[in-house]
């Protein structure tokens, strides 16, 4: 079962290192982004390992179950709703970002309304499934896409046009104090583990093996995601590009491939990751909010609808409307602010679970 943990962890990592994090970090590359990344490796892995050790004390339970035992309803419900909304937002921003990217790079004449409608519809439908099936689909997408991503990474690092001098220039700016924003952005890379807050219920023997892989994978993916754009797009103006990674992938080509432009291969792989990521986060968000209710199913005539389906629909509708009205700049600025709130919330959740695990161990021995 450990592998499912790593699939979730990797999905989050791949998504986050492409969409907003490189852009936010590269904006501050001369003022502390590198230090932020190094601190993030330590903090992120520490969070992940602490959280996993703590939640292992509650086999087969998610945070809703844990909170139910430990907290009164008046404190529990607002917390669960808040966390549910945070999870939903993390999926929604990826959905809006990917819809914009698809319009920009795949078919500029397509209508945003229909594209958003399709994305929201698909993700709403898939996120209404049970966690087990979502974990299985994550596995399939992972095995389909990781070879593609690995190939693209290999291609970019070994590209003749990769300038290592640019990376060495960046190393001068290591010892700078990072901003909170950069720190929040860099730690987001490691956030994948937090999904176990809900999916822990599926892991009956809750022990996850090989947790030491967490920092190693983190270092490799996080640093690659910063080094490759700098090496390919130049150190001075890499932040000119809004879709940093898409442009980086566009600088590579396969002379004898079926398609010359690697960027399409890249987009293909990332459609899969994005849909899985949105499914994961919306499912968790909906589950958390649904767990505030006593009834777990709603009876509509003969059909028993699970309680989290209506919430998936709400997320989809809100995202659809938000997607229609936001601009590129609004999304990026929102993400910058949201990441800091997210970091605070994540720290709070980790601290709560660790405290509860400690208390329950003390109580039950």
């Amino acid at each position, binding site marked *: 079962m450990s592998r499912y943990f790593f699939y979730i962890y990797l999905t989050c990592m791949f998504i986050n290192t492409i969409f907003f994090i490189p852009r936010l970090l590269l904006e501050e590359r001369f003022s502390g982004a590198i230090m932020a990344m190094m601190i993030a490796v330590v903090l992120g892995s520490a969070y992940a390992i602490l959280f996993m050790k703590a939640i292992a004390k509650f086999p087969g339970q998610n945070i809703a179950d844990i909170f139910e035992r430990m907290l009164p309803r008046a404190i529990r419900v607002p917390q669960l709703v808040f966390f549910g909304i945070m999870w939903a937002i993390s999926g929604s921003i990826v959905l809006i970002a990917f819809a914009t990217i698809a319009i920009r790079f795949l078919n500029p004449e*397509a*209508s945003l309304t*229909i594209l958003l409608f399709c994305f929201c519809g698909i993700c709403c439908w898939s996120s209404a499934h049970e966690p087990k099936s979502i974990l299985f689909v994550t596995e399939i997408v992972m095995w389909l896409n990781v070879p593609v991503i690995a190939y693209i990474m290999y291609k970019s690092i070994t590209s003749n*046009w990769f300038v290592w*001098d640019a990376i060495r220039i960046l190393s*001068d700016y290591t010892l700078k104090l990072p901003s909170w924003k950069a720190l929040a952005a860099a730690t987001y890379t490691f956030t994948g583990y937090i999904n176990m807050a809900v999916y822990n219920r599926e892991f009956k023997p809750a022990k996850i093996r090989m947790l030491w892989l967490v920092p190693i994978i983190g270092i490799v993916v996080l640093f690659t995601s910063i080094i490759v754009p700098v090496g390919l797009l*130049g150190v*001075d103006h890499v932040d000119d590009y809004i879709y940093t990674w898409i442009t980086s992938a566009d*600088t590579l080509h396969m002379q004898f491939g079926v398609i010359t432009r690697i960027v399409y291969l890249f987009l293909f792989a990332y459609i899969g990751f994005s849909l899985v990521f949105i499914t994961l986060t919306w499912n968790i968000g909906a589950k958390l909010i649904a767990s505030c209710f006593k009834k777990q199913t709603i009876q509509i005539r003969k059909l028993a609808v699970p309680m989290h389906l209506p919430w998936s629909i709400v997320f989809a509708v809100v995202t659809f409307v938000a997607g229609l009205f936001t601009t590129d700049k609004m999304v990026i600025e929102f993400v910058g602010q949201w990441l800091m709130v997210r970091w605070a919330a994540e720290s709070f959740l980790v601290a709560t679970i660790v405290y509860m695990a400690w208390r329950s161990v003390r109580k039950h021995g």
Partner: protein
Amino acid sequence: MVKAMLGWIAVLLLLTQSACGFKDIDNRFFVIVVGIDEGKSHPYKISLMLAIPSPKTEPGVAKSVIINKEADTIAEAVRLMKSSVDKELDFGHTNVFVIGKSFAMHQDLSETLDWIYRRRDIQQISMLAAGVPDAESILNTKPKSQRIPGNDLILALSGSGTESPYILREYLFDFYRRIRGNGIDAYLPIIQPEEDNLIINRGLVMKGPRASLELTPEETACLNQLVRGFRRFIVKAKVEDQYVTFSVSKLRTRYRFAFPPSAPPEVHLYVAVEADLEDSPVSLYHHNWSKLEQVIAGQIQSEYTDLLIKLQEKGSDPVGFGLHYRAVMHQGRVEYQNWKQLYPELKFHVHATARFKSTGIIE
């Protein structure tokens, strides 16, 4: 019941696909080459080579249309041209941008080509070149061997056809980082029409955002070795008062800075080649091979030194010594300011070593 209804909804959704803005390939004009010149009455004169799809791909039958327009911005010119053709212009397959030489000389290319950098449908791996006398005449030249419109330019520039040491290659993303970044300058291959053929054997080196220096074919080959590590080149040297040509099969260049106290900083460039004899009127098999190696090394050394000094005099740095200086020093932002003062007084020391491998299949 519910499932069937959902199924019908999915089918009905397919009908909305017409709104995805798909345009049939028959209704598109693919722009293969874009030419950018200075206009007579407006700042820009844009020429587009549009491919006409044809069922036959035989040499010499490639059909294309060239249209051009003058306007105040590139975007405006393109919009104006859209109304002069019957199909939608598609830049997704644009592979080559030819910039007129006088445009490159007089205009700030980091700003005036903004349309190319900004458009999302233009490939980062499209190639740039300079056209002599102007870009339009390059587009109008049609080599007899051409099978697909514009393909001759693409084959030559991308290296998938001919592989010549005299053809520099510059991709859009590389041009952008060179022209806007500090410590490295951009370069362009120069294309010149001659009757039905296009000759690409010179290079145009930028200083900052403007073109500053035109290189001879020999210097272009030398620059190609330095910046791209292009290794299929020849060395022509005099042995016993006759011209002897060696072909190089392996090349390794690397350089490092040296900072002697109370003297200008130095660049030590190490060039190592492996060469075969390709053309010689005298038999060299029984000659002293280590002497030949010295001859090759001496020739390479003088070629490299000449080019580097010429570039330095113009203040242009396509090799990226400045970038390397910024990489090896650890001073932060002042590095580049220091470098600008250092570069004119830099001393170049080229250390060439050659290994002579064979005389071919005859002595």
